[in-house]
């Protein structure tokens, strides 16, 4: 039994939902109690999706447990197939259903349905969300493709040359609720196109069953999101001989390495190593004099495996930071993260307890935190600037603008989003120069409103003057207005951020009414009066 106040990953069936919801024409029947339907909001609110995830929950109740829950499962499977007419069906169970052992997958398989049915085993008491996503993708791909006998066991990734066509690859792993996946796919497509490489299929994001069926046609696979794609890529390699890339193209160095790796897999001539300088601003911005101030800035990094590894490399090699903490909640990626940390002279933090991450962060006393939404909260408490680099995410991590993390544009985005929470070099420099001027008496809060020091901007109107302090009648222009005790008490109950406005409105109203005393009734009268 582990105490958790906040978790980085959901249960494995949420991972399965991510695969189903990412695809078109795949439906997921989930044996689960009604409360588990909360998972829909991850997609419709955090991702702002315009449709519900394609999931039918059986929503069994306690009274069903004494009866025939197996029949309940079958009824929901039948209804879902009739209603949604999917091209493939996933069947699985959440933690509670696992305990009652109905084996919904086997039940569905025995129903003689005329579509591919993939039964998922999602051990909720030992595994988590990313594992569930990876397992689901792997099971689905295997389920749809294993009957295909590989044409020849000696897959040739250079066959494109012989066949006089462009080389083509699959992009595997991007899914909903993955960090910036939507934009990363676009960026990688562009990158590959620029190198004359075709994208054969993207799975699972926006893929149909027919896209999965086309996977074997590619010369090689790009394992874009290892947390989700690795088992699938490994199986495709074993079954069809398709090789796959190991480098995740986040950052300048990694993108360069990725291109090199893929070119060599496909038997292409190595790309121009100076491409990065031409295609991305990061190298020059990092070299520009304004960035001198970044030298040795101490950063603390925590996130999923791929993003944490990428962040460490970028921080150290491309921005000249000093990495003072590195960790991940992805136990599956513990080994490479440990190795990367060792190289930085650190011990990796492998944990899913955010409090111990917060403690390590406080201990390391960094100047910048690169983490998840949770580290953002912790950093805020500690008064440290922070940029979010990894899931789990918040609606603000699904921006309207184009903001990939991968490829050349991704590097630009990373430069901006990591550097902006810090004071800019010129700014820091000027403040240093003018330190003794009267405007700079306090330690400068800059644009980091959350740094905790007093806001130097004087509130212009009376809007905020009442925040927390006693209303001061003498400060009013019209001294004759008087707040009674009861009125004051009522006013204090109003949240501070609207209190100023309410106060002003009420006084204005009282004047109009020719009242000199403001009691709670006046306040309510005014409220009604202004309530439009």
């Amino acid at each position, binding site marked *: *039994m*582990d*105490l*958790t*106040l*906040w*978790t980085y*990953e*959901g*249960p494995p*069936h*949420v991972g399965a939902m991510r695969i189903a919801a990412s695809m078109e024409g795949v439906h997921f029947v989930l044996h689960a*109690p*009604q*409360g*588990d*339907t*909360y*998972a*829909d*909001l*991850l997609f*419709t*609110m*955090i991702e702002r*999706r*315009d*449709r*519900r995830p394609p999931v039918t*929950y*059986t*929503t*069994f*109740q*306690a009274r069903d*447990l004494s009866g025939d829950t197996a029949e309940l499962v079958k009824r*929901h499977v039948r*209804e879902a197939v009739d*209603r949604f007419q999917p091209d493939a069906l996933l069947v699985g169970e*959440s*933690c*509670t259903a696992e*305990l*009652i052992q109905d084996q919904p997958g086997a039940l569905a398989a025995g129903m003689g349905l005329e579509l591919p049915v993939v039964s998922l085993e999602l*051990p*909720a*008491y*030992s595994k*988590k969300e990313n594992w569930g996503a990876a397992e689901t993708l792997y099971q689905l791909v295997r389920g749809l493709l294993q009957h295909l006998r590989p044409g020849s066991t000696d897959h040739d990734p250079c066959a494109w040359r012989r066949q006089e066509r462009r080389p083509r690859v699959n992009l595997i792993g991007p899914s909903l609720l993955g960090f910036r996946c939507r934009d990363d796919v676009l960026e990688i497509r562009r990158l590959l196109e620029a190198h004359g490489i075709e994208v054969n299929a993207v799975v699972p994001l926006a893929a149909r069953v027919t896209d999965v069926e086309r996977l074997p046609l590619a010369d090689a696979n790009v394992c874009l999101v290892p947390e989700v794609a690795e088992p699938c890529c490994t199986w495709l390699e074993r079954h069809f001989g398709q090789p796959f890339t190991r480098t995740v193209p986040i950052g300048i160095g990694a993108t360069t390495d990725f291109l090199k790796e893929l070119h060599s897999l496909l038997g292409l001539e190595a790309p121009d190593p100076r491409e990065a300088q031409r295609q991305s601003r990061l190298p020059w911005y990092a070299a520009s004099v304004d960035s001198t101030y970044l030298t040795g800035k101490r950063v603390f990094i925590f996130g999923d495996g791929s993003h944490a590894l990428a962040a460490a490399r970028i921080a150290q090699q491309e921005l000249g930071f000093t990495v003072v903490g590195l960790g991940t909640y992805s136990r599956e990626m513990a080994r490479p993260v440990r190795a990367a940390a060792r190289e930085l002279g650190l011990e990796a933090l492998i944990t899913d307890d955010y409090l111990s991450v917060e403690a390590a962060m406080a201990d390391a006393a960094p100047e910048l935190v690169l983490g998840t939404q949770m580290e953002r909260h912790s950093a805020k408490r500690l008064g440290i600037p922070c940029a979010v680099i990894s899931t789990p995410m918040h*609606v603000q991590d699904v921006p309207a603008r184009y903001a990939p993390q991968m490829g050349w544009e991704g590097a630009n985005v990373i430069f901006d989003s990591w550097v902006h929470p810090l004071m800019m070099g010129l700014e820091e420099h000027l403040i240093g120069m003018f330190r003794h001027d009267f405007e700079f008496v306090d330690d400068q809060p800059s644009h980091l409103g959350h740094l905790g020091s007093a806001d130097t901007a004087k509130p212009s109107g009376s809007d905020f003057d009442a925040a927390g302090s006693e209303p001061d009648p003498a400060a009013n222009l019209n001294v004759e207005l008087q707040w009674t005790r009861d009125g004051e008490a009522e006013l204090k*109950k*109003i949240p501070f951020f609207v209190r100023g406005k309410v106060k002003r409105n009420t006084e204005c109203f009282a004047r109009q009414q020719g009242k000199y005393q403001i009691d*709670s009734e006046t306040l*309510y*009268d005014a*409220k*009604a*009066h202004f*309530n*439009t």
Partner: protein
Amino acid sequence: MLTNLLKESGPREVFCGLTSIVWLHRRMPDAFFLVVGSRTCAHLIQSAAGVMIFAEPRFGTAILSERDLAGLADAQEELDRVARDLLQRRPEIRTLFLVGSCPSEVIKLDLARAAERLNASLSGRVRVVNYSGSGIETTFTQGEDGALAALVPTLPARDEPQLLLVGTLAHAVEDRLITLFQRMGIATVRSFPPRLSTDCPPVGRGTRMLLCQPYLSDTSRELQARGAELIRAPYPLGAEGSRLWMEAAARAWGIDEPIIRATLDPLSARARQALEPHRQRLQGKRIFLLPDSQLELPLARFLHRECGMALVEVGTPYLHRDLMEEELKLLPADTRVVEGQHVEQQLDRVRQAHPDLVVCGMGLANPLEAEGIATKWSIELVFSPIHGIDQAGDLAELFSRPLVRHGALAFA
């Protein structure tokens, strides 16, 4: 009485009772809610709460692992350990709620025994109570009912006359209501749950209670078993419902009609004024309430009678006839009230009727918006101060705003 009462069963789309922790932990900052459950449970409260109001949580989950599922004696020990660690880390906690979940119920983990044992060993420093918020037993707001019902046995016994307001209210609303009751002459007015878990009101034969929320059936039964008397009334949503609710208490206290009128008339008049602009926007608009918070019936009554809205369908997760009796009387006789849910069929009806506004859970809102139907999150209604005559305008505003917004947006 209503003729159009239907029952539906099928896949549901509602939160489980764990969700009420999200507002209960804010009401009683000296309490901690420890869910004994799975990663799903932890993820649920985090997602339901985290996206809306992230705060240093006074709730957490003791996540069951394979080891715990193997042997139950072990699980009891583990629970002790987790509870102790927690209390050590959070010494300010005075009440610890052990909250049961589906997994803990299915494996029959005895939380009552755990609570008893912890109570004995903590010897009064912290009070430990248990209840279930599981999704196989409870929906959404029922969790509050469970939590309060679990507190009832800890209330001191006293027979002095008092009015007890039962159900979580926003502080400002609570103060206001108490002031108004006292103005009418009800000297002792207390609230349950209290603002501090350690500040529990007494209960006894002099207690007469008003339910502030309609989903408190277990709590009200427990309180009645302790001698309290339930004052029947509609619920304090909207000017009319709130007035009837206050009047019911005043009458139970034998307060003279002129005093009641003198106190409430000006409030009603003011509320009418506050409501007017919203009524103009809402009048004649068609609303569909999906089952979620259990506030659907009182809201429908308010929206119909005070805002002039047409009720397409009023869903409710379950219908507690006894507690809803006064509300049902006020609804038009042909209102379609649907108990339970088959979410797909219900959404088919929504699409077919194409109402102007749908009240629904968070998972359904954006998909409906994408279909061009304005929505209102039902969870907002349990978070916002909406009770009482003075809040009627604010309550109406919650419904008129989505419509105003739909009218305001224009893309060429």
